[in-house]
C-alpha cells in the first residue's frame, strides 16, 4: 500500500472510531463541577484551586506510582509520534492525521513543541496545544488521534496556554490573532475569527475560557496598545462584548490616573492568562498585565488604572463590578496576570467568599470576591526590595529609587510568574513558585517622552538566591513553609490524596506533603511544563505531566 493510501485509510477508520467515542463533547454545565475525574478548563475547574477531589493516589499509595505511557509530541508538519514509547514508531501505530490551517506560508513556524499551558481531559481524550499546534491524544494509552497545525503569519510566539471546549468545539488562540474553532472529534477547522489586529502587533495565546455560552478570550501586545478581554459566541464566533482594561475615552473612570488620554489608550494591561469564575455572582475575576511603556516615564505619576490589577467583570455583560490594583504604577514589567484562586473559607470567625492571588511583584492578597474589599496583604520573596511598605489600601508602595536608573538600581527580579498556583482546603495553604534574585536595572533611554513597549532598559549583574516552593496562609499572608529548590518550580496541583505536585526545576515531577513541603515521590522526566494534572478513567487515577516535549502519564501499580 502506498504511504498516501495508508494515511487516508487510517484517517477514515480513525474518524469512524472517534465518532463513537466523543459523542456529546463537553456540556458547559460540567465545567461547574469541582475538579475530579475530568479536566474541563484551564484550571481544571472554575475556582482556579487546582485541587482535585481524587484520592486514589495519596500519601500512602504514591510510592507505587509508575509510568502508564509516554508520548513525544512534535510540532509543525514533521512526523507525528503516534506510537507509545516516546514516539519512536515502534508497535506499528499509524501516524496521526495532520490537519493544516492558517493564513501564513508555513515558513515561519519553527522550533519544537513547547507546553506552557493546560491540557484538557474530556471523555477519555486529552486536548493540548503548543504555539500554532493542537492535538487530541488518547488519555488511556497516549496515542495521538489528530494533530492540527496552523501556518502562522508571525507574531511574538510566547507559550500557548491551552484550549477551551464547548460541546464538540475546541478553541485555540493563535499568535497571529485568530480564534480557531476545531471539531473535537476530527481536529478539522470549523471557523476562525480575528480577535485582535495583527497589524497593531497583538499576539494571542491565552487559553479560551468557556462560561455558559461565552468564550472568553484575551490577547497580548508589547507595543503600547490597549488590553482587553472579549467574549465570543461559541457557535458562530461573533463577538458578544469587549471589555477594555484601560480607559479608552475622555471622561472614562481612571483616565485621571494617566498623563493623558493618549497615554491611557497606549497603556497596556494585557489579558494573557485565564482568570477564575464565580457562578453565584457571574463574576469572571482575572489579572491584568503591566502598563506600557513598561520601565520608563511617559504615563504620568498616577496609578495607571487598570494595569496590574485584579478585575471582576460580569460575564453576561462584560461590565466591571470591582477592581483592586495589586501593583499601582508598576515600573518593572511585572504583570498581575497570575490566575486568582476562589475559595470559601473562614476569615476572622466567619465564612467568607474570598479570592486569593500572588502576583509577580512578590505580594499576596486576600480579598472579598463579591465586593473586592481588601482583607490581607502578604509579602514573599527572600530579597524582595522594590517597594517601601504598604499604603492605606494594602497596596505595595513602589520605591521610585528602585526603578531602572541610568547608573543602575539594585532590585529584585520577578518573584513569581504565570505558572499556576494551587490551594488546598485540607491545609488552608496557597502554594506558589517563588524566584529569588537581584539584578541591576539600568535606564538606557532617558528620553523625557518615555520609551516604548519593554524598551529603554537593560539588566545586569544578576545574582540568584535560589527558587522555592512556598505555602502562604491566606488569613495572615505569611509564609507557612518554604522548600528551597535547585531550579525554578513549575505550576502546581493539589489533591484530596493530601499531595502537592510540581516540577522542581531539575527535571523531576515531585509529590510533596502539602502540610510541610517534604518530598515524598518523584520521577525524572525532563523540564516539567505548566503544571501537573490528574484525571480518573476506568477506576484508575492518572497523574499527567509534561517533561520537555513528552507527555508522561502515571498510574498506581
Amino acid at each position: 500500500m502506498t504511504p498516501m493510501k495508508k494515511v487516508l485509510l487510517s484517517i477514515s477508520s480513525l474518524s469512524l472510531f472517534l465518532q463513537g467515542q466523543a459523542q456529546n463533547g463537553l456540556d458547559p454545565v460540567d465545567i461547574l463541577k469541582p475538579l475530579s475525574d475530568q479536566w474541563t478548563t484551564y484550571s481544571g475547574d472554575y475556582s482556579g484551586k487546582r485541587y482535585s477531589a481524587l484520592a486514589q493516589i495519596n500519601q500512602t499509595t504514591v510510592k507505587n506510582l509508575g509510568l502508564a505511557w509516554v508520548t513525544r509530541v512534535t510540532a509543525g508538519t514533521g512526523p507525528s509520534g503516534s506510537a507509545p514509547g516516546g514516539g519512536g514508531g515502534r508497535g506499528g501505530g499509524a501516524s496521526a492525521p495532520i490537519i493544516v490551517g492558517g493564513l501564513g506560508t508555513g515558513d515561519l513556524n519553527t522550533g519544537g513543541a513547547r507546553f506552557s499551558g493546560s491540557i484538557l481531559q474530556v471523555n477519555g481524550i486529552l486536548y493540548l496545544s503548543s504555539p500554532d499546534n493542537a492535538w487530541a491524544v488518547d488519555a488511556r494509552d497516549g496515542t495521538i488521534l489528530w494533530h492540527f497545525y496552523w501556518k502562522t503569519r508571525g507574531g511574538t510566539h510566547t507559550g500557548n496556554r491551552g484550549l477551551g471546549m464547548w460541546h464538540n468545539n475546541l478553541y485555540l488562540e493563535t499568535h497571529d490573532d485568530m480564534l480557531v474553532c476545531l471539531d473535537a472529534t476530527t481536529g478539522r477547522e470549523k471557523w476562525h475569527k480575528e480577535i485582535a489586529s495583527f497589524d497593531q502587533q497583538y499576539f494571542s495565546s491565552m487559553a479560551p475560557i468557556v462560561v455558559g455560552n461565552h468564550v472568553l478570550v484575551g490577547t497580548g501586545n508589547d507595543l503600547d496598545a490597549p488590553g482587553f478581554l472579549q467574549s465570543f459566541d461559541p457557535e458562530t464566533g461573533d463577538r458578544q462584548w469587549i471589555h477594555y482594561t484601560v480607559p479608552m475615552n475622555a471622561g472614562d473612570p481612571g483616565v485621571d490616573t494617566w498623563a493623558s488620554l493618549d497615554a491611557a489608550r497606549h497603556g497596556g494591561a494585557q489579558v494573557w492568562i485565564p482568570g477564575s469564575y464565580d457562578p453565584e455572582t457571574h463574576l469572571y475575576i482575572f489579572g491584568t498585565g503591566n502598563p506600557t511603556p513598561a520601565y520608563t516615564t511617559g504615563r504620568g505619576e498616577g496609578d495607571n488604572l487598570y494595569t496590574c490589577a485584579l478585575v471582576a467583570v460580569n460575564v453576561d455583560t462584560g461590565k466591571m463590578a470591582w477592581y483592586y490594583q495589586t501593583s499601582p504604577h508598576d515600573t518593572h514589567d511585572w504583570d498581575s496576570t497570575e490566575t486568582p484562586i476562589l475559595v470559601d473559607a473562614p476569615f476572622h470567625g466567619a465564612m467568607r467568599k474570598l479570592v486569593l492571588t500572588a502576583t509577580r511583584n512578590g505580594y499576596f492578597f486576600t480579598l472579598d470576591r463579591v465586593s473586592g474589599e481588601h482583607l490581607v496583604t502578604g509579602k514573599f520573596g527572600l530579597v524582595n526590595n522594590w517597594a517601601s511598605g504598604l499604603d492605606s489600601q494594602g497596596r505595595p508602595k513602589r520605591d521610585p529609587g528602585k526603578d531602572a536608573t541610568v547608573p543602575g538600581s539594585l532590585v529584585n527580579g520577578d518573584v513569581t510568574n504565570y505558572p499556576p498556583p494551587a490551594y488546598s482546603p485540607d491545609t488552608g495553604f496557597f502554594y506558589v513558585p517563588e524566584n529569588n534574585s537581584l539584578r541591576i536595572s539600568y535606564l538606557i533611554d532617558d528620553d523625557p517622552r518615555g520609551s516604548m513597549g519593554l524598551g529603554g532598559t537593560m539588566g545586569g549583574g544578576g545574582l540568584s538566591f535560589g527558587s522555592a516552593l512556598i505555602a502562604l496562609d491566606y488569613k495572615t499572608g505569611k509564609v507557612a513553609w518554604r522548600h528551597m529548590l535547585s531550579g525554578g518550580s513549575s505550576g502546581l496541583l493539589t489533591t484530596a490524596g493530601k499531595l502537592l505536585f510540581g516540577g522542581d526545576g531539575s527535571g523531576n515531577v515531585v509529590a510533596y506533603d502539602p502540610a510541610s513541603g517534604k518530598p515524598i515521590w518523584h520521577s525524572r522526566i525532563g523540564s516539567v511544563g505548566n503544571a501537573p494534572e490528574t484525571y480518573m478513567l476506568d477506576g484508575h487515577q492518572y497523574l499527567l505531566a509534561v517533561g520537555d516535549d513528552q507527555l508522561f502519564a502515571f498510574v498506581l501499580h
Partner: protein
Amino acid sequence: MNIRKLIAASACAMTIVAAQTPPPANPQNGRGARGGGRGPNFPQQTRPLAAPEVLARGKALYGVHCSACHGGDLRGGDQGGPNLLRSMLALGDQHGELIGPVILGSRQDKGMPAFNLLATDTTALAEYIHSVLALVGRQGSPPGGEGGANLKILVGNAEAGKAFFDGKCASCHSISGDLKGIATKFPEPRTLQNTWVSGGAGRGRGGRGGGEDPSAKPTTVTVTLGDGRKVEGRLVRIDDFDVSLIQSNGVRQTIAREGDAPKVEVHDPNAAHKALVPTLSDKDMHDVTAYLATNK
C-alpha cells in the same frame, strides 16, 4: 516564558524578563526579521518597503511638515503631535488609505492641521512612516534601541567608594593585587559594575541572556557518606533526590539523597557576594564603581 527559560533565567538571574518572554531571539534591530519567534515579525517588519525615491520624498515631506509636532524620530514632539510609532491608525494603514485622510484634515478639531497635499505625497508620507515603523525592535522597543552609550553611569563618589572598599571588600580583595587594573579589564562602566556586584564569572556582561563564563571558578560539593568516606568534586547537579559531581580524576558520580543523608556541603565560590549584595545601597554600589573605575 516557558519553564526551560524560567530555569535558565533563574540560574543566571540577570535577564530582565519580559511580560511574556518569547523564545530566544537574535538581538535584532533591523528589519527583515523572518522566522518564528526571532524578533518582531509582524506585518510592519515583514512587508516590502516602498521604492527608495518614494521613501526619500516622504522623508523630505515629513521633515518639512510633520517633524515639529510628531518629532524627528516620529516618537512625538513638543507641540502635541502623538507618537506615530505606536499609533493604532498608522499600524493599521496599508498604503496611506488611513493616514492620508488625517493629513488632509479629518482630525482638525483635535489639533492635527490639514495639509493641502497631492495623493502621491500623502502616500509617500505613509510609506515613509511605515519604513520607520519597520525599525521598531523586539517587544516594542523604539528604533535604535541599543542606545544609552552616552549616558553617565559613573555618578558615585570615588572617595566614599574607597572607604567602603577598605571596610567591606579588602578582607578578600586588594586593589593593588587581584583587582589591579580592573577598570582596564572592564573599561565599560556598566560591565565593571555588573562584574563586581555579581562576583565576576562572566555575569557582568548584562543585556539579555548571557551565561556564565566557562573559565569561572566552579561550585564544588563534598558528600560525606554513611561510612564516613568523603566524595568531593565539581557540582554537576543537585536536587532533593540526587547529587551529581565530577571528581578530580574526571569520574562522574551520582549519589542518592534521602532527606539529610548523606551529608552534602555545597561550596559556592560566589557565596561571599551573595551575602554582601543584599545589604548594598544603590549609593554604596555607585561609589564603589566610581572608585574601581579609577583603578586603570
